[in-house]
């Protein structure tokens, strides 16, 4: 499989969110603001890419029996790095993300890519696979955040775009809307996919 196929697979036809709704817990909670979502998904992307790279590079050294716990530790190592970097560079964002940065560890996509791809591919290809998986994840969550922030606050990236007279839709800031909008994005994507398949 070439780099281009991997890209298409991970961002569209085999998008981790569309196919199995994997790993949304940690990110769905922060989709009411684009800035938070962007930083959170960049974190996920970086962790997926680098842990896939590391798992692939070490695959011949890790005994098969303990590979799960080793993968978890590798992922946790990168998440700690992301957490420390955020605290140092973006203390505000780090505060508003709360515990969700730490929860990147239990994001099933990362473990899934390590298991399904990195175990049997070269480090460079695994890095690319992890990066594009993160990208597929990012664009879906960013679309949700776009709708939620626009209608919930009337802003985009904290910049006011809707006129003063606009009454914010409070429901968009609250939890249920995250589920509704994700379902809508899924509906649209699935409809396109069904058409492609037909």
């Amino acid at each position, binding site marked *: 499989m070439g780099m281009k196929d991997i890209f298409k697979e991970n961002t569209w036809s085999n998008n981790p969110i569309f196919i*199995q*709704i*994997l*790993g*949304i*817990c*940690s990110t*769905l*909670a922060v989709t009411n603001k684009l800035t938070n979502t962007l930083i959170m998904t960049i974190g996920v992307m970086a962790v997926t890419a680098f842990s896939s790279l590391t798992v692939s590079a070490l695959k011949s050294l890790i005994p098969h029996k303990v590979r799960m*716990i080793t993968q*978890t*530790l590798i992922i*946790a*190592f990168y*998440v*700690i790095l992301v*957490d*420390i970097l955020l605290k140092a560079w973006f203390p505000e964002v780090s505060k508003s993300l*709360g*515990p969700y940065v*730490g*929860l990147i*560890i*239990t*994001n*099933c996509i990362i*473990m899934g890519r390590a298991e399904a791809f990195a175990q049997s591919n070269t480090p460079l290809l695994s890095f690319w696979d992890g990066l594009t998986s993160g990208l597929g994840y990012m664009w879906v969550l960013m679309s949700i955040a776009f709708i939620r922030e626009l209608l919930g606050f009337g802003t985009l990236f904290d910049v006011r775009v809707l006129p003063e007279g606009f009454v914010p839709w409070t*429901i968009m800031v*609250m*939890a*249920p*809307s*995250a*589920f*509704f909008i*994700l*379902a809508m994005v*899924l*509906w*649209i*994507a*699935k*409809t396109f996919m*069904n058409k492609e398949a037909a």
Partner: protein
Amino acid sequence: MSPDITPIALFVASIFTSNILLANFLGMCSFISISKDMTSASGLGLAVTVVLTITSAINYLVLQYVLIPLDIVYLRFIVFIIVIAAVVQMLEMIIDRISPALYMALGIFLPLITVNCAILGVALFIEIRHYTFIQSVVYGLGSGLGWWLAIVLLSAIRKKIEKAPVPAGLKGPGITLITIGFMAMAFIGFSGMVAVQ
């Protein structure tokens, strides 16, 4: 400073108003994939509740008496996840010895709990909100029960949806997410009762 909230209020809040799943989005993966059938949903809910209660207590003690004195709080992600994995592993062995019937019923769900983000999430909330020991245990138990309640309710609703005419693009996960959204809205109705923090 630990927040000023009575254990009873915290207990009610963690089940209803700040339900770990519907308000904090934690434990979604297994929530969506296991909720097709009531029996397994309930089994997983029970297992999550037990593991959450035990790990909340242990993680609290580890944080207060090991990580903070040694000044290695930044290692908490790794330590918490190891504690969770160890508790799940031990519970598996204990249940297998004491009640093979329960072990058979829970069997496949126990290992899944290690990667359930609700468990790690509760540990991290406890740390961020500076709960006391009693508060931590109550919060862990309440969150577990809240998760259990939510998954049992969802599995009951999904039984009905199976027979409903759903648009092709919305089948499966799509309609399940919309259902969860409605459940979350219903749970917001409790929010006048107590607030957590």
